[in-house]
């Protein structure tokens, strides 16, 4: 009887979650009607056992730094965070020191430049959004820290967008054709091309590899807690399953004499 009830209960919870997924997908598909269905990539971070591909994330960081960072900020990442993806503290310090940070005011009231430190966040390409618009024909390049979480099926979306340009010439309005963008045309110049970033390892320097790596990098910037979160998930699962078995046994024992 108890087992039957538990089964019912589990079915109700599970069915309601399934139903929510159904609703969710329904409105997701309505908002973003891409002219093309997104490309589906088998990401290493997907699924219950998915993990970060750290080598790819470091390559993606290089792509971001050399290409994307010219226009896109990454405000929520600090240099200290780079140690989470396999850079040593010294390497991260060296990378930070490569940037000038405006600090101050000092004791005579003036702002000054100093080399970056681990605690500093990534340096913005533009001082403000007006400057960013002025340099990009009125379009504002969004901050990329959360971009994967801020789009439906974000990883596949960004990958599709980066690899989906039709040609490299803008139309008369200065827009580039890309069927994966919501309006089919966007202001961003096709950012990637074969061979523009040189990798330190032997990974082929192709456009699709660049896109793959930069998405891995941005997935990490969007949810850096992912591996920790999943690890806690496995532990909680085991503990609660054991607890569940004990509870069922205890409940049966208590109820054996009910009503007698």
């Amino acid at each position: 009887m108890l087992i039957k009830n538990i089964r019912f209960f589990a079915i109700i919870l599970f069915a309601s979650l399934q139903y929510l997924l159904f609703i969710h997908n329904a409105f997701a598909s309505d908002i973003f009607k891409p002219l093309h269905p997104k490309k589906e990539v088998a990401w290493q971070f997907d699924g219950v056992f998915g993990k970060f591909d750290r080598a790819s994330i470091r390559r993606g960081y290089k792509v971001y730094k050399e290409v994307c960072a010219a226009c896109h900020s990454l405000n929520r990442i600090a240099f200290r965070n780079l140690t989470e993806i396999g850079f040593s503290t010294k390497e991260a310090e060296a990378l930070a020191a490569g940037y000038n940070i405006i600090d101050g005011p000092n004791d005579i009231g003036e702002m000054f430049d100093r080399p970056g430190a681990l605690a500093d966040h990534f340096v913005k390409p533009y001082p403000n959004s007006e400057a960013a618009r002025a340099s990009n024909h009125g379009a504002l390049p969004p901050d990329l820290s959360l971009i994967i979480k801020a789009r439906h099926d974000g990883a596949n979306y960004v990958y599709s967008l980066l690899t989906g340009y039709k040609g490299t010439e803008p139309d008369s309005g200065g827009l580039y054709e890309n069927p994966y963008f919501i309006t089919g045309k966007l202001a961003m110049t096709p950012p990637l091309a074969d061979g523009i970033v040189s990798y330190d390892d032997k990974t082929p320097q192709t456009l699709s590899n660049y896109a793959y790596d930069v998405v891995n990098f941005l997935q990490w910037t969007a949810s850096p807690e992912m591996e920790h979160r999943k690890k806690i998930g496995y532990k909680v699962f085991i503990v609660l399953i054991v607890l569940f078995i004990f509870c069922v046994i205890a409940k049966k024992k208590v109820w054996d004499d009910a009503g007698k």
Partner: protein
Amino acid sequence: MSNDNKIIDQSKTGSVVDWIEYRLPVFSFIKHLCDYRTPINLSFMWNFGILAGIALVVQIVTGLFLAMHYTPHVAHAFDSVEHIMRDVQYGWLLRYTHAVGASFFFIVIFAHIARGLYYGSYKSPREIVWICGVILYVLMMATAFMGYVLPWGQMSFWGATVITNLFSAIPLIGDSIVSLLWGGFSVDNPTLNRFFVLHYLIPFIIAAFAVIHVIALHQFGSTNPTGVEVKNVKKETVPFHPYYTYKDLVYVVIFFLVLFMMIAFLPDYLGHPDNYIEANPMITPSHIVPEWYFLPFYAILRAIPDKLMGVLGMFGAIAVLFVVPWLDRHPTKSGKYRKYFKIAYWIFIFNFLCLMWLGGQEAAEPYLTLSRISLCIYFSYFLVALPLLSKYEPISPDIPESIESSLKSKG
């Protein structure tokens, strides 16, 4: 005189428990809770009340710690949430538990209300239990709505704008109400500030109403699947502890298991991606949708072309719950023994899920027509089916004499 004797007795026994009990009867209160007689035949559907209480505690505890790190200011709210996610120790766990926990709270509450509707838990003498429950539901929706505004993402801002604007449909005083809600002439910093304060306050009011809900419940005890009241306390009921404490524990563990699997593996599954974009009053999202638990009511709102009528329809869909005890006057409590009621009930449940789905669709055809049909079914369950069935549905001969006899016939 008798008082004096008691004091002397207390000093003689000298136990700390007695000393406290004499001054504050807390132990007899705990004893009441433990000994509280509960029908022996409750199914798993009677577990959702406890689960709702636990979900409330989870929300209050995680919310307390989140509030220590959150900044209710339009310039800092979004950043402070990301600060919680990235820099606060286990901040992501707190926030995801709070966000997913809210959805689970609603799943549990929907199941709890559906059980009440099916087994006639609202019928005499438990009307006040039911009314307290509906008040709790309304307070919960208000809290959830204001909570969703706090991260100050695009959906927070535009959801707040759309919903608060609804009050402007009220004739004469509508605009003043909206200004009062906003604390100005648009959703802005004063709005965020007061929503934060109210979001922190209302859960404690919910807790108070939950206590009233339980006190009213304990007056006559829980209903049970047969709908027949307890006749033989000894044979048909068991003390709450240990019987129902242990039974509830099993379901509490399942609840936390599913909750934590969602938090660990699908934390953003029930949220909207647009809420990871910081609020921007200059850019309207292409499609403003509320959280999933508001979708049925959002569908009703959009189905009615007139703004005022739409607002009345939406609030009416909730308000009608208050009068259910007087709409359904059929003497049989449990839906189990009502052939025709059952049909109406399941149509109602299916229709509610349809409304939820429709609320997430675009405000265009064929969804609008479907929403209108669905909306009519929703109200006709309460306003047509329940009163008519109370009058014309025959009383089933299968209703057991007592809980005891129903158990015997099962073997």
